[in-house]
């Protein structure tokens, strides 16, 4: 086993695998994927529902199928990967290389070096503590993803009477999953006046099974000292504060939390990568390169995506760009402009664009701050309007992807602003 590589990819989920393939297709031969789990595929392995791959494969696949197709490709292309391997630290060295400290049963504890590193660690779920729900801390309170892993990968029975807090996609998917496993899902409570999950999932995971979605509701108390006995759910006001007197008791043995995902950027921060507080992911340029030269970021560790297809697409680009970095070294990036957000836009990826290193196509991905109907997405550089696109409806649960051709961006002199504009009727 060697210790020096051109590209080390941290994470063997959909982002890491696509990045590896992207790098290999761009001509890079010396790649290593490090995966902490015992198989490639990451979180997709526990996402046994379908709905993956429409963009990538033009058909609907389950998570494991999507993962296996990519894993097969990684293997067929002969890209090395190491499983059950945990990266503990990434450090940028003075010679421009990166030191990657890993441990595994096979290698022991060792420090590898790479010319470029691709961060593809994915995200984790927001735990109960971060939600500050008062009450006891009994058995039976799980994040939706933990329950998903227990049910789908360990074959465990998680509960019989279920309440779900948060209508993120994993919560919705688990409402259906628990129902099919014989549990009764009493309700899905959502703090916001809209669901953070996809509409299709509300239809096929809740409506199909008659599971009520309680918008503007939250769990205000948890009962049961050792084992969960029930929860109180209350309506909330415009400021998301529970309204007294609206509490209703739901007896249950299981409470699932689906209250948001947080990119896992502890390694990134340790490597000196600046983190955007809006996404909890790295600030990157159009090449998906972070502020640390030769360190790239893609997939859910960069920003939480709605569709794995977009993760794959983005990560393939990150891989190709890392390969180019290894080949050409520090690129002449030319003039750099910032991508700023205006009305209705929460964040953009990238947050800056180097005009001297543009690809034929540049993606700008973002999410909106609320529900917008009959509006236009507008992108301007100073007074120069680069794009205006009408949209019937925009929702925060959907990640928007705008693709700009090189000629639209070349020669810009002012920062780029992305915003939502009401359409004049």
């Amino acid at each position, binding site marked *: 086993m060697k210790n020096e590589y051109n590209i080390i990819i941290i994470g063997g989920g959909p982002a890491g695998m696509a990045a590896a393939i992207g790098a290999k297709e761009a001509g890079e031969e010396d790649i290593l994927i490090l995966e*902490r789990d015992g198989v490639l595929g990451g979180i997709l392995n526990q996402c046994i529902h379908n709905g993956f791959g429409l963009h990538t494969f033009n058909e609907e696949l389950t998570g494991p199928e999507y993962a296996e197709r990519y894993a097969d490709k990684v293997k067929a292309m002969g890209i090395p990967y190491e499983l*059950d391997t*945990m990266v*503990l630290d990434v450090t940028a060295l003075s010679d421009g290389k990166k030191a990657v*400290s890993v*441990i*595994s*049963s*096979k*290698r*022991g*504890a*060792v*420090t590898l070096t790479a010319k470029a590193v691709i961060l593809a660690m994915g995200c*984790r*779920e927001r*735990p*109960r*503590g*971060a939600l*500050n729900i*008062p*009450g*006891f*801390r*009994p*058995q039976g309170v*799980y*994040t939706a*993803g*933990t329950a998903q*892993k*227990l049910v789908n*990968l*360990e*074959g*465990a*029975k*998680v509960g019989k009477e279920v309440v779900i807090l948060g209508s993120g996609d994993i919560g919705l998917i688990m409402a259906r999953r628990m129902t099919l496993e014989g549990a009764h899902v009493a309700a899905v409570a959502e703090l916001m006046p809209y669901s953070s999950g996809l509409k299709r999932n509300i239809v096929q995971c809740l409506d199909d099974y008659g599971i009520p979605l309680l918008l503007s509701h939250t769990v*205000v*108390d*948890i009962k049961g*000292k*050792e*084992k969960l006995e029930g929860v109180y759910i209350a309506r909330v006001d415009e400021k998301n504060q529970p309204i007294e007197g609206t509490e209703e008791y739901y007896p249950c043995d299981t409470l699932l939390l689906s209250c948001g995902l947080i990119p*896992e950027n502890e390694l990134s921060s340790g490597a000196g990568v600046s983190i955007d507080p809006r996404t909890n992911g790295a600030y990157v340029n159009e090449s998906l390169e972070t502020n640390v030269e030769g360190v790239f970021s893609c997939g859910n560790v960069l920003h939480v995506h709605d569709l794995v297809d977009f993760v794959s697409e983005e990560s393939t680009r990150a891989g190709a760009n890392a390969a180019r970095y290894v080949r050409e070294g520090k690129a002449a990036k030319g003039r750099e402009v910032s991508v700023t957000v205006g009305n209705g836009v929460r964040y953009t990826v990238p947050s800056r664009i180097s005009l001297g290193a543009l690809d034929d196509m540049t993606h700008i991905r973002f999410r909106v701050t609320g529900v917008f109907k009959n509006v236009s997405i507008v992108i301007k550089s100073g007074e120069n309007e680069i794009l205006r696109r009408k949209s019937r409806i925009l929702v925060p649960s959907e990640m928007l992807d705008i693709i700009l051709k090189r000629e639209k961006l070349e020669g810009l002199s002012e920062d780029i602003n992305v915003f939502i504009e009401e359409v004049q009727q």
Partner: protein
Amino acid sequence: MADVVIIGAGAVGCAAAYELAKYKLSVVVVDKESDVCEGTTKANSAIVHAGFDAEPGTLKARLNVRGSEMMEELSNKLDFAYKRNEAMVLCFDKDISGLEALKEKADKNGVKGVSIISGDEARALEPNLTDEVQAALLAKTSAIVCPFEMTLAFAENAYTNGAEFKLSCAVTGIDKDSGGYIVHTSKGDIKARCVINAAGVYADRIHAMVSGTPLKITPRKGEYMLMDKTAGGYVSRTIFQLPTKMGKGILVTPTVHGNLLAGPTAENIDDKENTSTTKQGLADVKAKGSLSVKNIPFNKVITSFTGLRAVGDRGDFIIEECSDAPLFFDAAGIESPGLTSAPAIGEYLRELIEKRIPLEKKEKIAETRKGITHFAALSEEEQDKLIKETPAYGKIVCRCETVTEGEILDAISRPLGATTLDGVKRRTRAGMGRCQAGFCSPTSMALIAKKLGIRIEDVRKNGVYESEVR
């Protein structure tokens, strides 16, 4: 027949067992929970108090100072986390007579290294203190400790030296008998010459099983918020506020494992099992904590919890032989500074027993105890060596705290090993990090299930397995 039955496997019960197991005595520790450290010991501020707070002349004062003196050496011998991080008591009033009174108490209690400093001097040491701080008492001997590890260390060493532990074993009654006592439990009767009542919030109920003298324990609820390790350096000392009648007020402190902790509230309650947090309580922690330290990163809270203090009715620890029950010793009302005092209480209980029964030291005892190897704390070379010897240390189970499969296997297979998720967490920190067991619990559950020979869904977070109640 056991020489000593200790009721309660918390810090006090285990410290007493640690002390008594050095002697030629048969010692049995019983607890209604499935693990040691399941009551008041598992949720508190984890502070080794210097001893400036207790009324001079009380047991609290004496045992606090003694416990504080013993702690560092014990932490080395028994391998538990301890750090002398100093403490400050903040005064927000221009009138600093409250601090002067504390300083006087400290002197009377024999606490060394205590001085009064100005608000600016305090801010120079702790830049995140608020501008409202007028002056502070600085206590150099104050420290932080891991209460779980400390209690486990006492228990494991006592076990090695011959003490027996009966867990998931609730005391249902005690009868006086010609030779001493018959302790009735959910797992059968135990004959005992001596009984130590270290039952925490239940000490009054145990006491009433043998004695007619009054003893009332009031559970006092304390709510806490624990913040991520990235907030751990926000203060480096334990920051108290001048004590009020309801206790020491809200403190803000780093923990020995590098998190930031704020709390506790203080509310007297009736329910001895009520460890729920409340909206009001958590709001109080935020509001009062913010008096001391500005901009506490409450957005980095990873969990909140409630602990109960077992408050006695005499304003002091109640550690004595019962006047109407010979050789029945209460160790009751062990509220703060109970954790600090625990080793001294163990020693004191041994002295009380020694006055009544001649004790003889065992010829050979294990003086030290080796804890679970904390992989994350090792150097890369040490980690490499460990993995080469035992490959399970090369598999990370808990990503947030870098806990390996090797550590979890050790935690569930060592004597008095963990049988629940919380047990694994307290021994290894797996699940104690920022994702709060989201990623690692299925793996930890699978490892426990395999060890216990049960189905994964039957692995408990805490509490007693039904199969164990016979």
